[in-house]
């Protein structure tokens, strides 16, 4: 039987029978895999070595006929140890892993593996605020799902102008100019921040944006709303 080798990140672990575990893994080469890890329950490896969460591992596996393959070996490549040293970062990590597991029910693109690795790097860096990690992650999920908002032109087709303020039209997933005599919720700086996050700017970069604390609430609310309106 052919043994295959790839990088992998564990999304979830569930028990299978008395002694085995089924691991759900995301890989850049084979998408999402369900692999049987035999005997894991009865040896001291439940939380150890290459089957840890918040890690990237090299794995060897055999493809199965019924969709569940068999894990042959693992080698830990990188463990993001600072994540688990902080309660809030750990909890957010679990929450976002669960969300990613849910949105990648169908065969995902390799970009999801890169997203997850980026997420771990951001969570591992205690200079990146958790609000930024959450905002960035939600925006990347929207982008990968093909639901990026229009950040270049208004709903009517005119280019967005630096001197004007805008509100967001959720039906058309685009900005519209604020009504005369009224300030819109989004300024040019808000839109720059949104362009940065939707163009794949890293959480570290986002965390260095001037006046982030002022800009983030409205942008985050917009992204959250889009996530609800357009399920990934």
């Amino acid at each position: 039987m052919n043994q295959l080798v790839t990088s992998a990140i564990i999304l979830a672990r569930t028990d299978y029978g008395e002694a085995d575990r089924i691991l759900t893994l995301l890989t850049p080469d084979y998408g999402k895999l369900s692999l049987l890890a035999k005997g894991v329950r009865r040896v001291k490896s439940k939380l150890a070595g290459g089957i840890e969460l918040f890690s990237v591992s090299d794995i060897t596996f055999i493809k199965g006929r019924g969709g569940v393959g068999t894990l042959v070996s693992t080698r830990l490549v990188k463990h993001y140890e600072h994540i688990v040293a902080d309660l809030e970062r750990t909890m957010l990590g679990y929450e976002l892993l669960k969300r990613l597991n849910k949105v990648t029910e169908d065969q995902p693109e390799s970009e999801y593996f890169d997203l997850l690795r980026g997420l771990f790097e951001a969570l591992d860096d205690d200079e990146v605020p958790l609000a930024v990690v959450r905002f960035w992650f939600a925006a990347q999920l929207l982008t990968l799902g093909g639901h990026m908002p229009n950040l270049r032109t208004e709903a009517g087709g005119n280019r967005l102008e630096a001197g004007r303020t805008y509100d967001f039209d959720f039906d058309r997933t685009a900005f519209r100019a604020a009504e005369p005599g009224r300030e819109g919720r989004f300024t040019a700086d808000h839109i720059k921040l949104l362009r940065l996050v939707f163009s794949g700017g890293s959480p570290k970069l986002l965390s260095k944006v001037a006046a982030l604390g002022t800009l983030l609430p409205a942008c985050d609310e917009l992204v959250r709303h889009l996530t609800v309106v357009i399920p990934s």
Partner: protein
Amino acid sequence: MSNVLLIEPNVVLAGTYMQALQHAGYTAVHARGAQEAVDAADATRPDVVVLELQLSGHSGVEFLHEFRSYGEWQTVPVIVNTHLSAQAIAAVQPALNSELGVHMCLYKPRTSLQQLLGAINQTLAAV
């Protein structure tokens, strides 16, 4: 007789807790870390877990996620007895309760042995 799994990295403190638990009629097993606790749970089938969140190596939260990922341990009540203040765990406590089945959180420096035993009694009586 109920089994208590005590997960406590401080060996001296754990010794005091173990004595109190045994004196109160419980069978108790002590684990210093998360992996040791999973192994102990496999061996002893605990009725209740008393957990410090700050452990060396894997954290208490990692233990909880691992513990709850096994079918037979999903309903075992867990009492968090931690030296982290209520303020320090405020942001994560709702998720600890709702997603990880933590029955109560005690602030260790202000929790007497009697209060801990009371919490264990109360938790076991409720399940």
